[in-house]
Each structure stands twice: as structure tokens, then as C-alpha cells.
């Protein structure tokens, strides 16, 4: 067994051909997941049982099962259900890409909604009361007082989840998609050089993780201008 350094260098460009797909999966499901998370969080804090009960059940199920299982139910399972094949959803579910986006979105939405709720709950109650005492409406208090403070509180946990989502995109290689992970698996099966190829891929993922952390740290600092001391 010999470790081939040149293979690390030469495989990186090949692996990067899958970067576009990885980034697409990450960004699209990240944005859709955030929207879903906001909706779920608002349902959770609405105080109305017919809103928060479904949201809680949803979050419980999607956080309680492996994302790989969710992906397989969507990719292998749902096409078996006739009414889905006949519905508009089929446009999405016909393609593995759509299945990947759907699974990642549904999964990250559940996690992020809890993070957002933590942020909202972390805002001291007295600040909302101070807003109320000034005659601000409930909606105004939520937009101008709770939200900016909750966002600041939620950033560290949210950045972890964004990185988690990026790592989860690698799972789409199990449903025939050729993201970076998928390409790596093909190269390994051809060259049988798992160390070189997988380590190259690790380096790429680590660079993305590092960049993401830096970007969020910058954003957090910007959002924390008011905490100077």
C-alpha cells in the first residue's frame, strides 16, 4: 500500500465538478428550510393548540428519525403512492434532485424552528412589557424588539445547523446524485484509493465549513454592536 499524494492533488478538480450540485442542494434547501422553520416557530409560539400541536408533532417526527430514512421514504417510498404520482408533487419527486431538496428542507426546517424558538424565548420578558407599556402592538413588538434580539441570540446555533445541512447534502449520493460525495465514491470504486480520494474530499468540506464559520462570526459581530462592554 502506498499513499499517492499526487492523486490528492489530481482528484480535487474532479471532485469540484460536484461542488455546484452540493452548493445548489445546500442553498436551496437552506432558504426553503428557513422559511419552513419561521412558519413552524410562529405556529409553536402562537398559543393556539390547533397550530402548535401539528408543529410540535412535525418537529418531533423529523428530529426523531434519521435524515437518511426520510430521504429514502421520499425517494423510494413516495413514488409508490399513486395519488402522489398523479399530483403536482410528482414534478419534484420524479427527479432525485427534487427528492434531495425536499428531504433536506423538511429536515432542516424542524431543527431550525427550534433554534429560532430558543432565540425568541431568550429575549427577556421585560423588554416586551416595556414595548407594551409604550403602546406598541403585539406585531410591532415582535418585529422591532423581539426579532432583532432573537436573531442575535440564535446565530451561533443557527450557524451550526447550516453546517450540519451542508454535511447532510452528502447523503444524496445514496440516491444516485453526483454531488462531490457521489463523484468521490465513483472515483474510489475505479481507482481503489479511498485514502487519497476521501481525504481530498475532506479537505474540500473543511474549507467550506471554515468559510461558513468565518462568515457567521462576522455577521454575529455586526449584530452584537450593542454589547460593547
Amino acid at each position, binding site marked *: 500500500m502506498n499513499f499517492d499524494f499526487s492523486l490528492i492533488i489530481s482528484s480535487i478538480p474532479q471532485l469540484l465538478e460536484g461542488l455546484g450540485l452540493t452548493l445548489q442542494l445546500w442553498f436551496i434547501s437552506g432558504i426553503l428550510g428557513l422559511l419552513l422553520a419561521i412558519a413552524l416557530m410562529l405556529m409553536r409560539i402562537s398559543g393556539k393548540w390547533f397550530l402548535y400541536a401539528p408543529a410540535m408533532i412535525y418537529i418531533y417526527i423529523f428530529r426523531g428519525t434519521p435524515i437518511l430514512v426520510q430521504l429514502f421514504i421520499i425517494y423510494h417510498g413516495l413514488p409508490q403512492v399513486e395519488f402522489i404520482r398523479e399530483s403536482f408533487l410528482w414534478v419534484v419527486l420524479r427527479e432525485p434532485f427534487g427528492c434531495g431538496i425536499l428531504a433536506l428542507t423538511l429536515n432542516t426546517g424542524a431543527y431550525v424552528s427550534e433554534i429560532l424558538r430558543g432565540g425568541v424565548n431568550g429575549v427577556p420578558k421585560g*423588554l416586551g412589557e*416595556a414595548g407594551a*407599556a*409604550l*403602546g406598541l*402592538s403585539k406585531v410591532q413588538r415582535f418585529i422591532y*424588539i423581539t426579532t432583532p*434580539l432573537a436573531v442575535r441570540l440564535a446565530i451561533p446555533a443557527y450557524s451550526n445547523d447550516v453546517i450540519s445541512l451542508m454535511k447532510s447534502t452528502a447523503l444524496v449520493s445514496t440516491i444516485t446524485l453526483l454531488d462531490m460525495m457521489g463523484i468521490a465514491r465513483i472515483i474510489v470504486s475505479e481507482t481503489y484509493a479511498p485514502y487519497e480520494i476521501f481525504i481530498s474530499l475532506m479537505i474540500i468540506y473543511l474549507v467550506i465549513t471554515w468559510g461558513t464559520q468565518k462568515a457567521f462570526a462576522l455577521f454575529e459581530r455586526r449584530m452584537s454592536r*450593542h454589547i460593547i*462592554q
Partner: protein
Amino acid sequence: MNLANTEPRTVISLQNVDKYFGEFHALKKINLTVAKGERIVICGPSGSGKSTLIRCINRLEQHNSGNIIVDGHELTDQVKDIDAVRREVGMVFQNFNLFPHLTIVENLMLAPRLVRKTARDEARKHAMKLLERVRIPEQADKYPSQLSGGQQQRVAIARALCMNPAIMLFDEPTSALDPEMINEVLEVMTDLAKEGMTMICVTHEMGFARSVADTVVFMDAGEIVERNTPEEFFNNPQQQRTQTFLKQILSH
């Protein structure tokens, strides 16, 4: 000069107000009227219901039975009325509750801009005037975390004044302050009282009560035990519970 005597219009009235927190009976059949310009100090041991009482007046707490009428509005579940009442009633909290993500002047501008749709320049001008009134215009563009406790509380008073309220509620405004900062806050409150503001103030500052209040109310266990002028209250307390309380609080 007691404005209440020259213009005896009732601005707040509570009739048979009850408030429960679960099983706990926090307010028991409270009756209280406040005339325009009257300065009331409410004191009593902790857990006696004094904070709950003033929090009911702007409906941060909802009473369970009885009537509360503030400036002609009965407090009910009608949301519109509540926000209208809250604009007429300013409140100062024990923990200041300044919005940490806004600068001092932005703290003061927020409500006028959102609720009254005041233009930015005008709101700022008004805010600066109020900051001068509480003697810290130079801190306008700092964030609350950069100010001392006493300064923060003065800002909080200015913020409560920014909607030009007819009534001011103070919920233990000096309890969270270091001793050397208490006076600067009390001075601002005394100024307000001199200008004829209707004030209800929950506090243990008996010096303030003696010199500023028209009426002192003593509460214990959710009831109003005694209500009197400061002279009578301090020199000649009628109730046993009042005497005990005064002995404890004045002994140190």
C-alpha cells in the same frame, strides 16, 4: 401646592379588583381612586401585591374581576382600548428594560415613530428634549450597555415620557440601583412631580414618599391596609401592620 385639590378629576379608578395567579390570591378587592395630578406612593412588604396592582393599571397583568377605569377607558379584552390606554400611561420598570439593540435616542424614538408615525427628525428633537430633562443628552448615541444603572433608569423615565403620557407608573425604580445612584433618579422623579404629573410609585424610598407624595398607600397580603397623607402615615399610623412595617423599614 396640591393640584388634586384644585382640579379633583378622577383619572384612575379601581373597584373591587381581584387578581389570582393560579391559586394565589394576589389582589383582594382593591378599591383605589387617583385624581389628576395626584402623587401616590405605594409601599409594603415584598409579595404584598403592590407591583401587581400597578401592572394591572396598564394591563401588563389582567385582573380577574372588578373594574379598572383609566382616563375614561374601562380595561377589558378589547385590544384597541388597551393600546390607547398604554399610550396615556407611562411605565418605569425596576430593571429599566431598555432595548439593548437600540441606542439611547432610538429607545426614545421607537414608540412615537411606530405608534404616532412621527417623522424621524421631529421624534429625535423631542427625544433630545426629554434627555435634557433627565440630564443626559450627551449619552444619546450610546447603547444602554454603556451606561450606568442610574443613567439607564433616567433614560427609561425619558422613554416613558416620550408618548406624552398623562399618568406615570413607577415599579420600584430604584431597587436595582447601587446606593450612590438612587438620588439622581429620585431627583428626576421629584422634578416630574413638581410639574404636576399624575404619578403612582411603588417604592421603599420613604424620604421620597415624605417629601413628594400626596398620599401613601400601604399594602400587605394583597390588600390595601392603610391610605393616608404622608404626615399622618409616618407620624400616626393607624394599623398594627403599618406600624410593624414602618418600624422595620425605618430602623436601618
